[in-house]
C-alpha cells in the first residue's frame, strides 16, 4: 500500500496517460499493483482505472497477467498460498487489501463469473438463491422469490427455465449454465462483476447471447471482462486494456485501441502478429 494519495506521481508504464487524475472517480482503481507467485513476478506495476457502468476488457496473450489482475479485485488470489499482492487497489476509494475490509463483504460487492460454467449441483432456484440466503438479503420467502426471478430475468434466462426451477442447474446447456452463473452473481446486487473468459467454453450462439447480456448489464453494473477473443473485446467493451508479460502495455477507449493503437506491441497483438 505504498501510495494512497489521490494525486500520484506518474508511474513508469506507458498507460499512465490513461489513468484518471482523481482516482476517486474510478470505480476500481489500481496503482502500482504487483503480484508475485512465489518467486515469479506475475504482474508488474499496473496502474489502471476502471470506470463505473462501463465494460472494461482485459486482453493479451496467455500468461500475461490479465486473469491475475482480475482476481486481485475480489481477492480470489488470497486462496493461492504462494500469491502475494503489493500496491494499492481501491473500490470506491476503499482499499481492497485493507485489514478492515471483510473479504466476504468485498466479494458480495464484487461478483465473479468464471471461465467454465460452475453452477452448484443444486436446483436452478437454489443456485440463484444461495447468495441472497448467505448474506441474509431477503426477509422472507416472497422476497427471495422476487430476487431469484428478477436475477433470472436480468440474466435473460427466466423464459427458458421458469417451469423447471427445481431442476438441477447442472442439467442446463453450457450457455444456459453460464447465464445461470451470471444470474447467481447479480442476485446479490454487486457493484462490479468480474468475468474471466466467460464465453471460452461456449458455442457461438451461446456466446452471442452472453455478449448481448453483458451489454445490457452495463446499465446497472461495472463489468471487467478477460477475453482471448479480440472480436469479443471490440464488440462488448467500451475500454480495453492490453497486458503483455505481466505489464499493462496500453489502455484506452476500445475504438482507439483497435483502430489506432499507440504501442507497437498492442498493434502487433491486435493485428495477429503474435499471441
Amino acid at each position, binding site marked *: 500500500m505504498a501510495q494512497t494519495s489521490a494525486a500520484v506521481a506518474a508511474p513508469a508504464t506507458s498507460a499512465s496517460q490513461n489513468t484518471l487524475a482523481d482516482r476517486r472517480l474510478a470505480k476500481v482503481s489500481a496503482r502500482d499493483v504487483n503480484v508475485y507467485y512465489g518467486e515469479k513476478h506475475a504482474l508488474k506495476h499496473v496502474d489502471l482505472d476502471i470506470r463505473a457502468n462501463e465494460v472494461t476488457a482485459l486482453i493479451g496473450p496467455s500468461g500475461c497477467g490479465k486473469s491475475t489482475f482480475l482476481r486481485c479485485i475480489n481477492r480470489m488470489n488470497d486462496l493461492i*498460498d504462494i500469491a502475494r499482492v503489493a500496491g494499492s487497489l481501491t473500490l470506491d476509494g476503499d482499499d481492497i487489501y485493507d485489514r478492515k475490509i471483510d473479504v*466476504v*463483504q468485498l466479494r458480495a460487492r464484487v461478483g465473479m463469473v468464471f471461465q467454465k460454467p460452475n453452477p452448484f449441483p443444486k436446483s436452478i432456484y437454489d443456485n440463484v438463491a*444461495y447468495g441472497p440466503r*448467505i448474506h441474509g438479503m431477503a426477509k422472507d420467502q416472497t422476497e427471495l422469490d422476487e430476487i431469484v426471478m428478477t436475477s433470472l430475468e436480468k440474466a435473460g434466462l427466466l423464459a427458458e427455465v421458469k417451469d423447471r426451477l427445481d431442476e438441477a442447474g447442472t442439467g442446463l446447456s453450457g450457455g444456459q449454465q453460464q447465464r445461470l452463473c451470471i444470474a447467481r452473481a447479480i442476485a446479490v446486487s454487486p457493484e462490479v462483476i468480474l468475468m474471466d473468459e466467460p464465453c471460452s467454453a461456449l458455442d457461438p450462439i451461446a456466446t452471442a447471447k452472453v455478449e448481448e447480456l453483458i451489454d445490457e448489464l452495463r446499465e446497472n453494473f461495472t463489468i471487467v471482462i478477460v477475453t482471448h477473443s479480440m472480436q469479443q473485446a471490440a464488440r462488448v467493451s467500451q475500454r480495453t486494456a492490453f497486458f503483455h508479460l505481466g505489464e499493462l502495455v496500453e489502455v484506452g477507449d476500445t475504438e482507439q485501441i483497435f483502430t489506432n493503437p499507440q504501442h507497437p506491441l498492442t498493434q502487433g497483438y491486435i493485428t495477429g502478429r503474435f499471441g
Partner: protein
Amino acid sequence: MTEMVEQTSAPAADAVTSRLKRRYAAERRFQFMGMAAIAVALGFLALLLVSIFAKGASAFVQTQVQLEVTFDAGILGVAPGADRDTLASGDYLGLAKAALWSRFPDVSGRAEKRQLAALLSPSAGDALRDMVLSDPNVIGSTRKVWFPVSDSVDMTNKGYLPRDPAVEGARLNAAQMGWLQSLEDGGVLTKRFNWQFVTTGDSRDPTQAGVWGAVVGSFYSVLVTLLLSFPLGVATAVYLEEFAPKNRWTDLIEVNINNLAAVPSIVFGLLGLAVFLAVFGLPRSAPMVGGLVLTLMTLPTIIIAARASLKAVPPSIREAALGMGSSKLQMVTDHVLPLALPGILTGTILGMARALGESAPLLMIGMVAFIVDVPSGPMDPATVLPVQVYLWADSSERAFVEKTSAAIIVLLLFLAVMNLAAILLRKKFERRW
C-alpha cells in the same frame, strides 16, 4: 519421403494389417485373462460361502423331543402357591426327566434311567420353568412340551456322528439308539428352529450356546466406533484439506496419519490395554473400550478416505462459493461436504467393516472372556462376533463346529446389512452433475 512411398505399397499395408491383428489379439488375451481372474475369484468366494453355509446352516435348527409332562408338585419340590423365587428354584430338569422316563415305563434301574435321561439337554427344564413362572396354575396339569435333546443326540440326529454304536466316534450306546429310534418312530423327535441360538449368550453346553450376546457386543462396539471415529475423522479431514496451511507441520501430520493406517491392529489393542484400562481404569471386556480401540484403528482409514473424496470435489465449486461471498465454513458445509459425502461414507463403511471383523486388538482388552449374559449396555462385559468365532473354533465338542460356521454366517449377515445401509445412504446423498 521413402516412408510415405512404402506406406502406400502393398507389403507395407500387409504389415499394418498384421500389426493390427496382433493388437486385437493382445486385447482379446487381456480380456480373457481379466475374465479368468474374475472367475477364479468368484469360484473361491463361492467355495467359501458354500462350505460355511453347508456347515453352519444346521446350527439354526435343533433336534427336539415332544414329551407329555405332568407338572407334579412333588417332583418339583415346590407348592403351587409359593412365591416366585421358590417357584424358580424347583427341580424342572427332574420334571423333564420324569416325563421321559414315563414314556419308557419298562426302563428300570439307576444306570439305565441315567442313560435315558442323558438324551435330554441339561437345559431341558428351562422351558418348564418359564411355563410355571408365567402361570403357576399349570402345576398339577399335564401338557405336551418340546424339549431340546443333548448335543450328542443332536449331532447324531443331524448325521454328524455315526448312528451305529459299534463305529468309532459314536457317542450313543445301543440302548440309547433304541430309545432314539422309538422316539423317531413315534413322530415326537424333529428338528425345530433353534431360538436359543439366536437369543442367548455363550455357554459351555453346545445346546445352550447362543450367538446373540456376541451380536449385541459387536453392535455396541461398532456403534461406539462409528459415533467417535466418523465425526472425528471427517472433522480432521476437513480441517487438514480445507483450512490448514500447507507447511512442514501439516506434512508431518499427514505422513503420520498414513503410517497409522498401516500399524498392525494388535498394537492398538496393547495401547488400549495400557491407556484405557490401566490409566483411565475403564472396565475390562467392555464394548465401550473395544469401541475406543477400534476407533483408534479406524480413524486413519476414515481420514484418508475423507481427504481423498474432499480432494475430488472440483475446485470450481469452491471458487463459485467463495466468489459468491460465502465464508470458508459455508463453502465446506453447503457445497464441498455434501459433494464429498458419498465418498466419505464409502470409506467409513470400509473402516466399520474392518472394525466389525477385527478380533486381535479386542483379545488384548479382555473381550475374549467367556461371557454368558447378553450385555445390556456398552459398559457390560461382552464379546464380539469374530472373537466368538475364534472361541468356538477352539472348542473340542463336535457341536461347536456348526456353531462356528453359524456365527460366521451371522457375522456376514451383519456385514451385509451394514453395506446395504451404506449403499442406501450413498444413493440418497449422491448428486447428479
